[in-house]
């Protein structure tokens, strides 16, 4: 399988900084799509605004680069209008959990068949390094010059609590897991959330003296706890990599189709 077959080669090289995690996440989404034999003609990529949301422009599918935070509701309209389409949403931590936070929890609740990949680089990269709802407490950002006093969300716990039926976290170090989780997320007929823990060497890394992209990847490796279903506590000061939920439930477009069918029968 060649990743480039799924890319718009004439748009590359991409705009992202050297060592940015976005490309790593995107190439593994593509591997997942390829592994599942999804038809490119039948697969739509929807993104919001931010560094990671530029991904849509590079991916050779029907692609929709929307407004800040709104990728999920745009995608909801697409999926409702044509449930035969595979709809994959690519968003960032600011896009999905700050400005788009409301859409995130309601899509989780509704369980419409979308696969959301949140590229979490802990910062607003596109606007040059302001803190996001996923910036850890104490970290430095251009708008948290004395250290971030906000408490971050745990994105996966948020998704679980709100009702998403598939929830997992991979990373740009744990790439095989990441690919597998995206695959399973797509396979789940319902709302799937995959957090892709990523790196922003330019802003988050530099502001917090985390060194090169390699050092940042090593940081992910060294602070990861592989989730085994019982060790949530171990991940407290570190972070868990793994599959947290895979509990299929009634899917929204199918429920709606049942209404349509019942009205037909009633004629």
């Amino acid at each position, binding site marked *: 399988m060649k990743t*480039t077959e799924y890319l718009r080669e004439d748009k590359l090289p991409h705009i992202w900084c*050297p060592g940015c995690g976005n*490309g*790593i996440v995107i190439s593994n989404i593509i*591997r997942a799509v390829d592994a599942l034999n999804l038809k490119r003609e039948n697969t739509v990529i929807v993104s919001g605004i931010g560094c990671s949301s530029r991904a849509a422009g590079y991916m050779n599918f029907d692609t929709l680069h929307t407004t800040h935070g709104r990728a999920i509701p745009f995608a909801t309209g697409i999926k409702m209008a044509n449930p035969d389409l595979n709809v994959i949403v690519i968003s960032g931590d600011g896009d999905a959990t700050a400005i788009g936070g409301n859409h995130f929890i309601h899509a989780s609740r509704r369980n419409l068949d979308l696969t959301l990949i949140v590229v979490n680089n802990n910062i607003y990269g596109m606007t040059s390094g302001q803190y996001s709802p996923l910036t850890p407490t104490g970290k430095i950002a251009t708008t948290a010059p004395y250290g971030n006093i906000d408490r971050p969300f745990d994105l996966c716990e948020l998704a679980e609590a709100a009702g998403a039926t598939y929830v997992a976290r991979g990373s740009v170090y744990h790439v095989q897991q990441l690919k597998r989780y995206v695959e399973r997320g797509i396979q789940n007929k319902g709302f799937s959330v995959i957090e892709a823990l990523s790196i922003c060497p330019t802003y988050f890394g530099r502001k917090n003296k985390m060194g090169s992209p390699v050092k940042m990847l090593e940081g992910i490796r060294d602070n990861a706890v592989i989730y085994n279903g019982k060790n949530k506590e171990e991940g407290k000061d570190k972070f868990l990599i793994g599959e947290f939920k895979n509990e299929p439930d009634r899917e929204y477009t199918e429920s709606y189709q049942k209404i349509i069918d019942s009205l037909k029968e009633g004629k």
Partner: protein
Amino acid sequence: MKSEMLQKHHIHINQKWCKGCGICVAFCPKKVLVLEKGKAKAENMEDCIACRMCEYRCPDFAIEIEVAK
């Protein structure tokens, strides 16, 4: 016999897309890759086990492994 097979793997590196971050070099379990003039280069191909970790972790879509059959 084994090394003959392995020598047939090939690492394609798209120099135009590579931004020289060094991730592929650092995490190659067999130290196959090096950075040369700010770009990745496959130097010790005979050691390559085609684990694809360089390809999977390349942020620039610049690496493709061709596995010997």
